[in-house]
């Protein structure tokens, strides 16, 4: 905990993104507080979330494509073995849920699983290390866990949502899709009721997908921040058990995001 800061300020500081945007008074600039970032409205970008997100995604592609390029069909080396394990794990999950032919699903599931896992993994880096480094080099805010930014989780779930709509229409036709939305579960005489029910169900998919990941990671991060408020000699008593437990959560959340994506897309392909 940085000195000369109240606990509330400390928590507030750790939960504020580094935002660059069009401020009504200051013009295009970095926001100097959460207040200013809010005033920027939609025309702003969370630079830290974006940088870490893209950096981790690039790391994923770099690592996997490097192994893929050198992949041997003989006895695999350590890294290749590890990567193959992940690939087979994802492939098994896709094959057990998704029974149609679609070349996008499996690579997308892999991307989601590894990328979300890496983003969540940033949560295990002690909360003050990188923000302190950033502060030392003149950057006021630095949130290093992209999945604690609702923009990031919602961005991914909306991309999945677009795919759900796209494949629903592609597989069933526009009329088939509309029929699915309006003629069940109660038949054509309860059409408005059906439509309302199905639309809520449809929209709940991306929202729940994004909020589940965001909520879990945000809460986890918050607990790490609260633990960091303790005296330094007492922190390990709580932070170590919580970090160990959190390893389970970050993996589980990445897995859930992946599996639900596959399930939703399988549902989009299935005819009812």
């Amino acid at each position, binding site marked *: 905990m940085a000195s000369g800061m109240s606990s509330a300020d400390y928590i507030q500081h750790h939960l504020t993104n580094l935002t660059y945007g069009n401020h009504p008074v200051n013009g295009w600039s970095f926001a100097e507080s959460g207040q200013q970032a809010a005033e920027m409205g939609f025309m702003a970008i969370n630079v830290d979330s974006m940088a870490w997100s893209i950096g981790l995604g690039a790391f994923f592609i770099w690592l996997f494509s490097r192994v893929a390029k050198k992949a041997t*069909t003989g006895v695999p080396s350590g890294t290749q073995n590890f990567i193959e394990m992940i690939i087979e794990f994802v492939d098994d999950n896709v094959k057990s849920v998704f029974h149609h032919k679609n070349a996008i699903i499996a690579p997308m599931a892999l991307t989601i699983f590894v990328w979300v896992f890496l983003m969540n993994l940033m949560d295990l880096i002690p909360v003050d290390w990188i923000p302190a480094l950033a502060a030392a080099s003149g950057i006021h805010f630095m949130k290093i866990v992209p999945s604690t*930014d609702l923009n990031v989780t919602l961005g991914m779930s*909306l991309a999945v949502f677009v795919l759900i709509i796209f494949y629903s229409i592609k597989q069933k036709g526009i009329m088939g899709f509309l029929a699915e939305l309006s003629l069940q579960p109660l038949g054509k005489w309860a059409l408005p009721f059906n439509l309302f029910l199905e639309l809520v169900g449809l929209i709940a998919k991306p929202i729940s997908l994004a909020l589940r990941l965001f909520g879990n990671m945000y809460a986890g991060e918050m607990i790490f921040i609260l633990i960091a408020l303790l005296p330094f000699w007492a922190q390990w008593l709580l932070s170590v058990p919580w970090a160990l437990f959190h390893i389970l959560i970050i993996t589980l959340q990445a897995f859930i995001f992946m599996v639900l994506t596959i399930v939703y897309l399988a549902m989009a392909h299935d005819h009812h």
Partner: protein
Amino acid sequence: MNMNMTILGQIISFIIFVYLCMKFVWPPLTAALAERQKKIAEGLDAADKAARELEDAQQSVEAALQESKAQAATLIEQANKRASQIVDEAKDTAQAEADRIKAAAAADVEQEVNRAKEALRAQVATLVVAGAEKILGASIDVNNHQELVDKLAAEL
């Protein structure tokens, strides 16, 4: 918590990373996995085939062994039969030879006996003549009394 353009940034990065994964990560790795799976399956097949071939070879070896054993037994039997046949033949020949020799010897003996009998007869005739001369005190003209002498000799 502000909603802002980060959401668009994340959507764009998501699309790009999924595309890169589809292009450079997934196909080569799954291809390598499938290839290895094929190789392992082929290896197992080959091992199975080799085991089967080994079994076949063992069976044919066993069969060949049996056959040669049977052949050897036949040969030995034939040889034994032939040997006893030869021995029998030799026995027969020897017996025949012995019989022949015996018969020849018997004939010889008979001949000798006859010859001795003849000689004895001749000598008896002479002795009879000499005896008679002595008894009669006169010589007996052999020519005159030839018939008589012969009769005597024949009666002996």
